[in-house]
């Protein structure tokens, strides 16, 4: 198998996108003061988090809903909850 980027892999998955209702919010004010690791930038299996122009951005649409980021965030700077009922990743096989 050829190596695939994370976004290519997410592209294979099925999502019910809840447009206009992000289920992740990053409180950057907390990150800036409290967080050195910025673990969210690497622990997320879906690479949801990235740093863009000095801001931490959550591209929540590709979220696999594992919760890794929330557990890994040392400073409680992530508002992470499941998407609204029926939305988000849909595992066909799981």
């Amino acid at each position: 198998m050829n190596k695939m980027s994370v976004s290519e892999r997410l592209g294979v998955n099925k999502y019910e996108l809840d447009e206009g209702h992000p289920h992740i919010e990053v409180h950057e004010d907390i990150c800036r003061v409290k967080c050195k690791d910025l673990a969210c930038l690497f622990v997320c299996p879906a690479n949801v988090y990235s740093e863009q122009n000095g801001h931490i951005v959550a591209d929540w649409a590709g979220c696999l809903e594992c919760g890794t980021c929330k557990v890994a965030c040392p400073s409680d700077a992530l508002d992470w909850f499941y998407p609204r009922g029926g939305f988000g990743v849909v595992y066909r096989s799981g």
Partner: protein
Amino acid sequence: MTDHTSVDKFDVIVVGAGVAGSTAAYLLARQGLQVVLIERGPYPGSKNLSGGVLYTHSLHQILPNFWEEAPVERCITNQVVIFMTGSAHFNIDYKDEAFSKAPYNAFTVLRGKFDRWLAEQAEAAGAILVPRIRVDRVLRGHQGEVIGIAAGEEEMLADVVIAADGANSFLAQEAGLRGRIPTHQVGVGVKELIALPRETIEERFRLDGREGAAYAIVGYATQGVAGGGFLYTNLDTISAGLVMRLDDLVQNKLKPGDVIEDFLSQPMIAGLVKGGKLVEYGAHLVPEGGLAMMPRLVADGILVVGDAAGLGVNNGFVIRGMDLAIGSAAAAAEAILEARARNDFSTGGLGDYAQKLEKSFVLADMRTYARTPEFFSNDRLYHAYPAMLTDLMRQIYTHHAVPREHLVSMFSRSARENGVSLFDLVRDLFSGVRSL
């Protein structure tokens, strides 16, 4: 104060239609209780992911010979443990024909299909399945007891709420049964589901008919992060993935999405999945804290089952969760029936759940493996030992024009080179024997 007068009331609300939730709903509905089974996904299983091996014993007790009806993939007959370095690997291969006959020991399952089937059993028994609803919080009565759930603006009452809402268990946290999950008590599971023709899988894994293989991979699989890799055969797909302890992942600053691709490109693994087509990529938290992670299991009006209760065993050879989840659901259902007979749904009234769990295989197994999380936090397991083993094998099989070294001296030199003292070795061996 919430107005609870206008809402429906049920005997039991089960939050989460995974294996634990659906089993509990099935058992309670079968006894004539009014059960609502709430699932946030569009269908049961749509949010669930696991490596995929279901040990049959606990479900077989509840739904005898369930494999005849349920969408199971393959029965596990070939168990393989692989110690891996970047370029070499050392395998322990165990095949047992007895495992290919009923009562089977274990099956691979795909949760999107299997959980759906299990929830259908609960529905057939009379439980009402409510998909596409995310439960946001528990409702409390005057004494702080849990009296129901809220989803958005809507509320629903019940004598008991079962939190079967998975590893993140927001509900158990909200109900005060557990605190924040520490990073060393969970693993990050990432999995790729790779499609291959059925015959190819059977040929590569040496399988007959519905036989299946379960590979556990230690060492380079996780690039030194505490944890391991797995490879399970389904009918026409392979589940390949890693479970990595979150604290160690954070410390190593590795990206799980990259580590799994490196894992799959290891020659040994690559050969097995060659030509396959990725059909799904998923991730899930795996409770790995063992007994230490378990929350309080019961409070007034609520109990916690399955992953939400932190029930998981990972001894390196096998990763278990679903059978424990089913066992816990059975204990919870029994406890609720007894509490109902006494009409006491307080912590005391439901307290039998903890005792039943205590007596059942679930906690017995959790206790047996109580030391494994600690054992598996041993760094040597991921670096030194796989390297030693493969060094040793390399030396045994490499023939140079020099006199052969004796095995013992080869071994001790390899240990030295890999920074392992005899003391370490003996201690780890002992601790492994005790904890696995």
